[in-house]
Protein backbone atom coordinates (compact mmCIF):
# COMPACT_ATOMS: atom_id res chain seq x y z
CA UNK A 1 0.00 0.00 0.00
CA UNK A 2 1.21 3.47 -0.91
CA UNK A 3 0.56 5.81 1.98
CA UNK A 4 0.71 9.53 1.53
CA UNK A 5 0.72 11.41 4.81
CA UNK A 6 0.27 15.18 4.93
CA UNK A 7 2.15 15.63 1.68
CA UNK A 8 2.66 19.30 0.90
CA UNK A 9 4.75 21.61 -1.25
CA UNK A 10 5.36 25.08 -0.01
CA UNK A 11 7.76 27.94 0.06
CA UNK A 12 7.93 30.87 2.45
CA UNK A 13 5.34 32.89 0.57
CA UNK A 14 3.23 30.40 -1.26
CA UNK A 15 1.51 27.12 -0.56
CA UNK A 16 1.34 25.10 -3.75
CA UNK A 17 -0.02 21.95 -2.24
CA UNK A 18 -1.72 21.84 1.15
CA UNK A 19 -1.13 18.78 3.32
CA UNK A 20 -2.84 15.88 1.62
CA UNK A 21 -3.25 12.35 2.94
CA UNK A 22 -4.58 9.23 1.25
CA UNK A 23 -3.66 5.61 0.51
CA UNK A 24 -3.43 3.78 -2.76
CA UNK A 25 -3.93 0.02 -2.61
CA UNK A 26 -2.58 -2.46 -5.14
CA UNK A 27 -5.20 -3.49 -7.63
CA UNK A 28 -7.10 -0.24 -7.30
CA UNK A 29 -7.39 2.74 -9.58
CA UNK A 30 -7.60 6.11 -7.90
CA UNK A 31 -8.50 9.16 -9.90
CA UNK A 32 -7.44 12.72 -9.17
CA UNK A 33 -9.67 15.40 -10.61
CA UNK A 34 -9.53 19.16 -10.51
CA UNK A 35 -9.44 22.32 -12.55
CA UNK A 36 -6.16 23.56 -14.00
CA UNK A 37 -3.96 24.98 -11.31
CA UNK A 38 -5.52 22.70 -8.73
CA UNK A 39 -2.23 20.94 -8.07
CA UNK A 40 -3.02 17.58 -9.69
CA UNK A 41 0.28 17.26 -11.53
CA UNK A 42 2.11 18.65 -8.54
CA UNK A 43 0.77 15.80 -6.47
CA UNK A 44 2.37 13.27 -8.78
CA UNK A 45 5.64 15.18 -8.82
CA UNK A 46 5.61 15.44 -5.04
CA UNK A 47 5.16 11.70 -4.63
CA UNK A 48 8.14 11.10 -6.92
CA UNK A 49 10.26 13.70 -5.23
CA UNK A 50 10.33 16.25 -8.04
CA UNK A 51 9.97 19.57 -6.27
CA UNK A 52 10.08 22.88 -8.13
CA UNK A 53 13.05 25.12 -7.37
CA UNK A 54 12.70 27.21 -4.28
CA UNK A 55 10.06 25.01 -2.69
CA UNK A 56 10.27 22.33 -0.07
CA UNK A 57 8.33 19.16 0.53
CA UNK A 58 6.56 18.30 3.73
CA UNK A 59 4.96 15.08 4.91
CA UNK A 60 6.00 11.61 3.83
CA UNK A 61 5.31 8.83 1.42
CA UNK A 62 5.67 5.24 2.59
CA UNK A 63 5.30 1.82 1.06
CA UNK A 64 4.13 -1.13 3.06
CA UNK A 65 3.40 -4.68 2.07
CA UNK A 66 0.99 -6.77 4.05
CA UNK A 67 2.80 -9.04 6.42
CA UNK A 68 6.14 -7.32 5.92
CA UNK A 69 7.69 -4.43 7.82
CA UNK A 70 7.24 -0.88 6.57
CA UNK A 71 9.93 0.41 4.27
CA UNK A 72 9.99 3.88 5.68
CA UNK A 73 11.57 6.25 3.16
CA UNK A 74 10.83 9.89 3.28
CA UNK A 75 11.15 9.86 -0.47
CA UNK A 76 9.28 7.34 -2.55
CA UNK A 77 11.33 4.28 -3.28
CA UNK A 78 12.18 4.50 -6.93
CA UNK A 79 11.75 0.84 -7.41
CA UNK A 80 8.13 1.13 -6.47
CA UNK A 81 6.68 4.04 -8.40
CA UNK A 82 6.84 5.07 -12.06
CA UNK A 83 5.36 8.07 -13.81
CA UNK A 84 3.50 8.00 -17.11
CA UNK A 85 4.24 11.60 -18.00
CA UNK A 86 1.89 14.08 -19.60
CA UNK A 87 3.98 15.14 -22.56
CA UNK A 88 6.43 13.42 -24.88
CA UNK A 89 9.24 15.74 -23.84
CA UNK A 90 10.26 13.07 -21.35
CA UNK A 91 11.45 10.99 -24.30
CA UNK A 92 14.97 11.46 -25.62
CA UNK A 93 14.50 13.17 -29.00
CA UNK A 94 17.34 11.36 -30.72
CA UNK A 95 16.43 7.77 -29.93
CA UNK A 96 13.61 5.54 -31.02
CA UNK A 97 10.81 4.69 -28.63
CA UNK A 98 11.76 1.03 -28.46
CA UNK A 99 15.38 1.80 -27.61
CA UNK A 100 14.30 3.92 -24.72
CA UNK A 101 11.69 1.51 -23.45
CA UNK A 102 14.08 -1.42 -23.53
CA UNK A 103 16.63 0.65 -21.68
CA UNK A 104 14.07 1.36 -18.96
CA UNK A 105 13.45 -2.36 -18.61
CA UNK A 106 17.16 -3.09 -18.45
CA UNK A 107 17.86 -0.45 -15.83
CA UNK A 108 14.99 -1.38 -13.56
CA UNK A 109 15.76 -5.08 -13.67
CA UNK A 110 19.37 -4.28 -12.86
CA UNK A 111 18.22 -2.23 -9.95
CA UNK A 112 15.94 -4.92 -8.66
CA UNK A 113 18.84 -7.36 -8.95
CA UNK A 114 16.51 -9.97 -10.23
CA UNK A 115 18.13 -13.14 -11.35
CA UNK A 116 15.38 -13.67 -13.84
CA UNK A 117 16.30 -10.67 -15.95
CA UNK A 118 16.27 -12.51 -19.19
CA UNK A 119 13.01 -14.16 -18.31
CA UNK A 120 11.51 -10.75 -17.61
CA UNK A 121 12.69 -9.38 -20.93
CA UNK A 122 11.19 -12.36 -22.67
CA UNK A 123 7.87 -11.82 -20.97
CA UNK A 124 7.95 -8.18 -21.87
CA UNK A 125 8.43 -8.90 -25.52
CA UNK A 126 6.07 -11.82 -25.65
CA UNK A 127 3.67 -11.18 -28.46
CA UNK A 128 0.80 -12.39 -26.35
CA UNK A 129 1.61 -9.91 -23.67
CA UNK A 130 -0.35 -6.75 -23.03
CA UNK A 131 2.83 -4.78 -23.53
CA UNK A 132 3.01 -5.31 -27.22
CA UNK A 133 -0.67 -4.65 -27.47
CA UNK A 134 0.02 -1.13 -26.31
CA UNK A 135 3.10 -0.58 -28.40
CA UNK A 136 2.89 -1.81 -31.95
CA UNK A 137 5.77 -1.99 -34.42
CA UNK A 138 4.93 1.42 -35.78
CA UNK A 139 5.23 3.22 -32.46
CA UNK A 140 8.32 1.27 -31.47
CA UNK A 141 10.25 2.36 -34.53
CA UNK A 142 9.33 6.06 -34.30
CA UNK A 143 11.35 8.89 -32.95
CA UNK A 144 9.48 11.03 -30.44
CA UNK A 145 8.84 13.86 -32.88
CA UNK A 146 7.17 11.46 -35.30
CA UNK A 147 4.57 10.34 -32.79
CA UNK A 148 1.03 11.54 -33.11
CA UNK A 149 -0.90 12.46 -29.98
CA UNK A 150 -2.37 9.00 -29.46
CA UNK A 151 0.86 7.18 -30.18
CA UNK A 152 2.74 9.45 -27.79
CA UNK A 153 0.38 8.78 -24.92
CA UNK A 154 0.72 5.02 -25.47
CA UNK A 155 4.52 5.31 -25.55
CA UNK A 156 4.48 7.33 -22.34
CA UNK A 157 2.27 4.82 -20.59
CA UNK A 158 4.50 1.99 -21.75
CA UNK A 159 7.52 3.88 -20.46
CA UNK A 160 5.99 3.66 -17.01
CA UNK A 161 4.40 0.22 -17.10
CA UNK A 162 7.46 -1.54 -18.56
CA UNK A 163 9.33 -0.55 -15.42
CA UNK A 164 7.42 -3.22 -13.53
CA UNK A 165 6.87 -1.00 -10.54
CA UNK A 166 4.20 -1.65 -7.92
CA UNK A 167 2.54 1.70 -8.48
CA UNK A 168 1.95 3.84 -11.53
CA UNK A 169 1.10 7.52 -11.64
CA UNK A 170 -0.58 8.43 -14.92
CA UNK A 171 -0.63 12.18 -15.56
CA UNK A 172 -3.40 13.10 -18.02
CA UNK A 173 -3.07 9.86 -20.00
CA UNK A 174 -5.92 10.74 -22.36
CA UNK A 175 -5.72 14.49 -22.73
CA UNK A 176 -6.57 15.49 -26.28
CA UNK A 177 -7.19 11.96 -27.54
CA UNK A 178 -10.16 10.74 -29.52
CA UNK A 179 -12.44 8.24 -27.82
CA UNK A 180 -10.94 5.11 -29.40
CA UNK A 181 -7.40 5.91 -28.30
CA UNK A 182 -8.64 6.92 -24.86
CA UNK A 183 -10.39 3.58 -24.54
CA UNK A 184 -7.18 1.72 -25.39
CA UNK A 185 -5.31 3.64 -22.72
CA UNK A 186 -7.93 3.05 -20.07
CA UNK A 187 -8.12 -0.61 -21.00
CA UNK A 188 -4.41 -0.93 -20.37
CA UNK A 189 -4.69 0.91 -17.07
CA UNK A 190 -7.44 -1.44 -15.98
CA UNK A 191 -5.31 -4.38 -16.99
CA UNK A 192 -2.41 -3.05 -14.92
CA UNK A 193 -4.62 -2.69 -11.89
CA UNK A 194 -6.77 -5.80 -12.10
CA UNK A 195 -4.54 -8.38 -13.78
CA UNK A 196 -1.18 -7.28 -12.44
CA UNK A 197 -2.47 -5.91 -9.13
CA UNK A 198 -0.59 -2.69 -9.40
CA UNK A 199 -1.82 0.51 -7.77
CA UNK A 200 -2.73 3.12 -10.34
CA UNK A 201 -3.21 6.84 -9.72
CA UNK A 202 -4.79 8.61 -12.68
CA UNK A 203 -4.72 12.38 -12.92
CA UNK A 204 -7.20 13.92 -15.30
CA UNK A 205 -9.34 16.94 -15.91
CA UNK A 206 -11.93 14.81 -17.70
CA UNK A 207 -14.28 13.62 -15.01
CA UNK A 208 -16.48 11.60 -17.33
CA UNK A 209 -13.69 9.30 -18.50
CA UNK A 210 -12.39 8.95 -14.96
CA UNK A 211 -15.74 7.86 -13.60
CA UNK A 212 -15.85 4.86 -15.89
CA UNK A 213 -12.55 3.45 -14.70
CA UNK A 214 -11.70 4.71 -11.19
CA UNK A 215 -12.55 2.99 -7.94
CA UNK A 216 -12.13 6.15 -5.92
CA UNK A 217 -11.72 9.79 -6.74
CA UNK A 218 -9.75 12.57 -5.08
CA UNK A 219 -10.99 16.07 -5.79
CA UNK A 220 -8.46 18.90 -5.65
CA UNK A 221 -9.06 22.61 -5.73
CA UNK A 222 -6.22 25.13 -5.58
CA UNK A 223 -3.85 22.72 -3.94
CA UNK A 224 -6.30 21.46 -1.34
CA UNK A 225 -8.03 18.14 -1.08
CA UNK A 226 -11.71 18.92 -1.27
CA UNK A 227 -12.96 15.39 -0.79
CA UNK A 228 -12.36 11.74 -1.40
CA UNK A 229 -15.33 10.12 -3.05
CA UNK A 230 -16.49 7.35 -5.35
CA UNK A 231 -18.03 7.39 -8.83
CA UNK A 232 -21.33 6.13 -7.45
CA UNK A 233 -21.58 9.01 -5.04
CA UNK A 234 -20.89 11.54 -7.76
CA UNK A 235 -23.41 10.00 -10.13
CA UNK A 236 -26.07 9.98 -7.47
CA UNK A 237 -25.32 13.51 -6.42
CA UNK A 238 -24.07 12.73 -2.95
CA UNK A 239 -20.74 14.50 -3.09
CA UNK A 240 -19.24 17.86 -2.29
CA UNK A 241 -20.80 20.86 -4.13
CA UNK A 242 -17.53 21.58 -5.89
CA UNK A 243 -17.38 18.02 -7.16
CA UNK A 244 -20.97 18.35 -8.31
CA UNK A 245 -20.04 21.58 -10.11
CA UNK A 246 -17.28 19.68 -11.93
CA UNK A 247 -19.79 17.01 -12.86
CA UNK A 248 -22.24 19.61 -14.10
CA UNK A 249 -19.49 21.16 -16.22
CA UNK A 250 -19.37 18.11 -18.48
CA UNK A 251 -21.04 19.12 -21.75
CA UNK A 252 -23.47 16.22 -21.61
CA UNK A 253 -24.76 17.53 -18.30
CA UNK A 254 -25.07 21.19 -19.12
CA UNK A 255 -28.79 21.36 -19.27
CA UNK A 256 -29.60 18.68 -16.77
CA UNK A 257 -31.36 19.72 -13.66
CA UNK A 258 -29.22 19.96 -10.57
CA UNK A 259 -29.96 16.94 -8.44
CA UNK A 260 -31.42 18.01 -5.18
CA UNK A 261 -29.98 16.29 -2.15
CA UNK A 262 -33.28 16.14 -0.39
CA UNK A 263 -34.61 13.77 -3.02
CA UNK A 264 -31.91 11.21 -2.44
CA UNK A 265 -32.66 9.45 0.74
Amino acid at each position, binding site marked *: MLSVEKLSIQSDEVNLLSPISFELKPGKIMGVIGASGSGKSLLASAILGDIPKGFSRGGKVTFSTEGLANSDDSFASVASVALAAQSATVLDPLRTVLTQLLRRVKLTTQRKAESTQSALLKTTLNTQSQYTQLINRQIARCYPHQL*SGGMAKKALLAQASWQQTDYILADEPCCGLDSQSAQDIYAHLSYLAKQETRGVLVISHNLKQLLSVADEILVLQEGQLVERTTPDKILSGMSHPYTQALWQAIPANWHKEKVKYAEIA
Partner: protein
Amino acid sequence: MLKLSNGHLAYGIGEQTGIQFPDIELLPGQSLGLFGPSGLGKSSLAKVLAGIEALSGGELVLPEKQSGLANPVQWIFQQPEFAFNPRLTLRASLEESWRGEGYQSLLAQFAILPSWLDRRPSQVSGGQLQRINILRALTESTQYLICDEITAHLDMLTQQQIWQSLGQYTKERKLARLVISHDEELLGQVCDSIIYWS
Protein backbone atom coordinates in the same frame (compact mmCIF):
# COMPACT_ATOMS: atom_id res chain seq x y z
CA MET B 1 -23.12 34.99 -45.82
CA LEU B 2 -20.24 32.56 -45.69
CA LYS B 3 -20.31 29.69 -48.13
CA LEU B 4 -17.82 27.12 -49.31
CA SER B 5 -18.62 24.66 -52.08
CA ASN B 6 -16.37 22.01 -53.66
CA GLY B 7 -13.49 23.47 -51.73
CA HIS B 8 -10.13 21.94 -52.47
CA LEU B 9 -6.69 22.82 -51.12
CA ALA B 10 -3.57 21.40 -52.72
CA TYR B 11 -0.36 21.24 -50.82
CA GLY B 12 3.19 20.97 -52.02
CA ILE B 13 4.39 22.16 -55.40
CA GLY B 14 3.03 20.12 -58.24
CA GLU B 15 1.40 17.59 -55.96
CA GLN B 16 -1.75 15.86 -57.05
CA THR B 17 -3.11 15.24 -53.59
CA GLY B 18 -4.81 17.78 -51.41
CA ILE B 19 -7.65 18.23 -48.98
CA GLN B 20 -11.24 18.07 -50.10
CA PHE B 21 -13.35 20.25 -47.84
CA PRO B 22 -16.97 19.55 -46.97
CA ASP B 23 -19.53 22.07 -48.18
CA ILE B 24 -20.24 24.70 -45.58
CA GLU B 25 -22.88 27.37 -45.42
CA LEU B 26 -23.13 29.75 -42.48
CA LEU B 27 -26.00 32.14 -42.05
CA PRO B 28 -26.19 34.92 -39.46
CA GLY B 29 -27.27 33.67 -36.06
CA GLN B 30 -26.51 30.07 -36.93
CA SER B 31 -24.22 27.80 -34.92
CA LEU B 32 -22.69 25.03 -37.02
CA GLY B 33 -20.50 22.28 -35.66
CA LEU B 34 -17.69 20.48 -37.49
CA PHE B 35 -16.66 17.13 -36.08
CA GLY B 36 -13.68 15.24 -37.33
CA PRO B 37 -10.57 13.45 -36.17
CA SER B 38 -7.34 15.41 -35.98
CA GLY B 39 -4.87 15.59 -38.82
CA LEU B 40 -7.50 15.87 -41.52
CA GLY B 41 -7.12 19.54 -42.09
CA LYS B 42 -9.71 21.19 -39.92
CA SER B 43 -7.34 24.06 -39.22
CA SER B 44 -6.61 24.44 -42.93
CA LEU B 45 -10.32 24.82 -43.47
CA ALA B 46 -10.45 27.47 -40.78
CA LYS B 47 -7.59 29.35 -42.41
CA VAL B 48 -9.31 29.26 -45.79
CA LEU B 49 -12.55 30.60 -44.34
CA ALA B 50 -10.72 33.33 -42.47
CA GLY B 51 -9.10 34.39 -45.71
CA ILE B 52 -5.58 33.54 -44.58
CA GLU B 53 -5.01 30.78 -47.07
CA ALA B 54 -6.09 30.67 -50.69
CA LEU B 55 -8.28 27.92 -52.06
CA SER B 56 -6.90 25.81 -54.89
CA GLY B 57 -10.29 24.96 -56.29
CA GLY B 58 -13.95 25.41 -55.59
CA GLU B 59 -16.00 28.42 -54.69
CA LEU B 60 -15.82 30.54 -51.59
CA VAL B 61 -18.24 33.32 -50.79
CA LEU B 62 -17.06 35.61 -48.04
CA PRO B 63 -18.77 38.58 -46.41
CA GLU B 64 -17.53 41.91 -47.63
CA LYS B 65 -14.54 43.27 -45.79
CA GLN B 66 -14.73 47.02 -45.38
CA SER B 67 -11.43 48.79 -45.70
CA GLY B 68 -10.08 50.09 -42.43
CA LEU B 69 -12.15 47.66 -40.40
CA ALA B 70 -11.22 44.20 -39.18
CA ASN B 71 -12.05 41.03 -41.06
CA PRO B 72 -15.71 40.13 -40.44
CA VAL B 73 -14.61 36.47 -40.27
CA GLN B 74 -12.55 35.87 -37.13
CA TRP B 75 -10.58 32.70 -36.43
CA ILE B 76 -9.94 31.75 -32.82
CA PHE B 77 -7.64 28.79 -32.34
CA GLN B 78 -6.62 26.36 -29.67
CA GLN B 79 -3.48 27.82 -28.19
CA PRO B 80 -3.85 31.43 -27.14
CA GLU B 81 -0.15 31.62 -26.25
CA PHE B 82 0.66 31.88 -29.93
CA ALA B 83 -1.95 34.51 -30.64
CA PHE B 84 -0.47 37.30 -28.59
CA ASN B 85 2.59 39.49 -28.90
CA PRO B 86 4.56 38.39 -25.84
CA ARG B 87 5.98 41.85 -25.37
CA LEU B 88 2.71 43.73 -25.16
CA THR B 89 0.47 43.83 -22.13
CA LEU B 90 -2.90 42.22 -22.68
CA ARG B 91 -4.56 45.59 -22.49
CA ALA B 92 -2.38 46.84 -25.33
CA SER B 93 -3.25 43.80 -27.43
CA LEU B 94 -6.95 44.28 -26.81
CA GLU B 95 -6.80 47.95 -27.65
CA GLU B 96 -4.93 47.16 -30.82
CA SER B 97 -7.83 45.03 -32.04
CA TRP B 98 -10.63 47.14 -30.68
CA ARG B 99 -8.96 50.42 -31.60
CA GLY B 100 -10.10 51.92 -28.38
CA GLU B 101 -11.64 50.88 -25.13
CA GLY B 102 -14.90 49.48 -26.40
CA TYR B 103 -14.13 46.12 -24.84
CA GLN B 104 -14.48 47.39 -21.26
CA SER B 105 -18.22 46.74 -21.10
CA LEU B 106 -17.73 43.08 -22.01
CA LEU B 107 -15.10 42.21 -19.41
CA ALA B 108 -17.61 41.11 -16.80
CA GLN B 109 -19.59 39.01 -19.27
CA PHE B 110 -16.52 36.93 -20.03
CA ALA B 111 -15.38 36.77 -16.40
CA ILE B 112 -12.20 38.72 -17.12
CA LEU B 113 -10.79 40.65 -14.21
CA PRO B 114 -9.40 44.09 -15.14
CA SER B 115 -6.25 43.37 -13.14
CA TRP B 116 -5.28 40.64 -15.60
CA LEU B 117 -5.05 43.13 -18.43
CA ASP B 118 -1.96 44.79 -17.09
CA ARG B 119 -0.04 41.53 -17.29
CA ARG B 120 1.80 39.93 -20.16
CA PRO B 121 0.53 36.76 -21.87
CA SER B 122 3.02 34.56 -20.02
CA GLN B 123 1.79 35.82 -16.66
CA VAL B 124 -1.80 34.62 -16.88
CA SER B 125 -3.21 31.12 -17.00
CA GLY B 126 -4.39 29.32 -20.14
CA GLY B 127 -8.05 29.80 -19.32
CA GLN B 128 -7.67 33.51 -18.63
CA LEU B 129 -5.67 34.01 -21.80
CA GLN B 130 -8.19 32.18 -23.96
CA ARG B 131 -11.03 34.35 -22.66
CA ILE B 132 -9.11 37.49 -23.54
CA ASN B 133 -8.27 35.94 -26.91
CA ILE B 134 -11.96 35.41 -27.58
CA LEU B 135 -12.84 38.94 -26.47
CA ARG B 136 -10.24 40.28 -28.85
CA ALA B 137 -12.02 38.67 -31.77
CA LEU B 138 -15.43 40.10 -30.89
CA THR B 139 -15.09 43.60 -32.25
CA GLU B 140 -17.94 45.57 -33.82
CA SER B 141 -17.17 44.40 -37.31
CA THR B 142 -17.15 40.68 -36.50
CA GLN B 143 -19.97 38.71 -38.06
CA TYR B 144 -18.63 35.18 -38.29
CA LEU B 145 -16.64 33.31 -35.69
CA ILE B 146 -14.57 30.22 -36.39
CA CYS B 147 -13.93 28.51 -33.07
CA ASP B 148 -11.15 26.03 -33.75
CA GLU B 149 -10.97 23.72 -30.71
CA ILE B 150 -10.95 26.75 -28.48
CA THR B 151 -11.52 24.91 -25.22
CA ALA B 152 -9.71 21.66 -25.99
CA HIS B 153 -6.94 22.24 -23.48
CA LEU B 154 -8.98 23.92 -20.82
CA ASP B 155 -10.54 22.30 -17.81
CA MET B 156 -14.24 21.56 -17.64
CA LEU B 157 -15.30 24.48 -15.48
CA THR B 158 -13.53 27.06 -17.65
CA GLN B 159 -14.90 25.39 -20.77
CA GLN B 160 -18.44 25.58 -19.47
CA GLN B 161 -18.06 29.20 -18.46
CA ILE B 162 -16.57 30.23 -21.81
CA TRP B 163 -19.31 28.58 -23.85
CA GLN B 164 -21.97 30.13 -21.66
CA SER B 165 -20.57 33.63 -22.14
CA LEU B 166 -19.91 33.12 -25.82
CA GLY B 167 -23.31 31.59 -26.41
CA GLN B 168 -25.05 34.53 -24.79
CA TYR B 169 -23.00 37.06 -26.72
CA THR B 170 -23.44 35.46 -30.13
CA LYS B 171 -27.16 35.17 -29.53
CA GLU B 172 -27.44 38.86 -28.62
CA ARG B 173 -25.50 40.05 -31.63
CA LYS B 174 -26.76 37.42 -34.07
CA LEU B 175 -23.26 36.25 -34.87
CA ALA B 176 -22.71 33.09 -36.89
CA ARG B 177 -20.46 30.38 -35.45
CA LEU B 178 -18.54 27.48 -36.90
CA VAL B 179 -17.42 25.30 -33.99
CA ILE B 180 -14.67 22.81 -34.75
CA SER B 181 -14.13 20.14 -32.13
CA HIS B 182 -13.46 16.47 -31.55
CA ASP B 183 -15.79 16.49 -28.54
CA GLU B 184 -19.12 15.29 -29.86
CA GLU B 185 -21.04 16.07 -26.72
CA LEU B 186 -19.80 19.63 -26.67
CA LEU B 187 -20.94 20.10 -30.24
CA GLY B 188 -24.29 18.63 -29.35
CA GLN B 189 -24.77 21.24 -26.67
CA VAL B 190 -23.43 24.23 -28.50
CA CYS B 191 -24.51 23.83 -32.13
CA ASP B 192 -27.75 23.75 -34.05
CA SER B 193 -26.39 21.23 -36.53
CA ILE B 194 -23.22 19.24 -36.96
CA ILE B 195 -21.20 18.26 -40.03
CA TYR B 196 -19.34 14.97 -39.70
CA TRP B 197 -16.15 15.04 -41.71
CA SER B 198 -14.29 11.81 -42.35
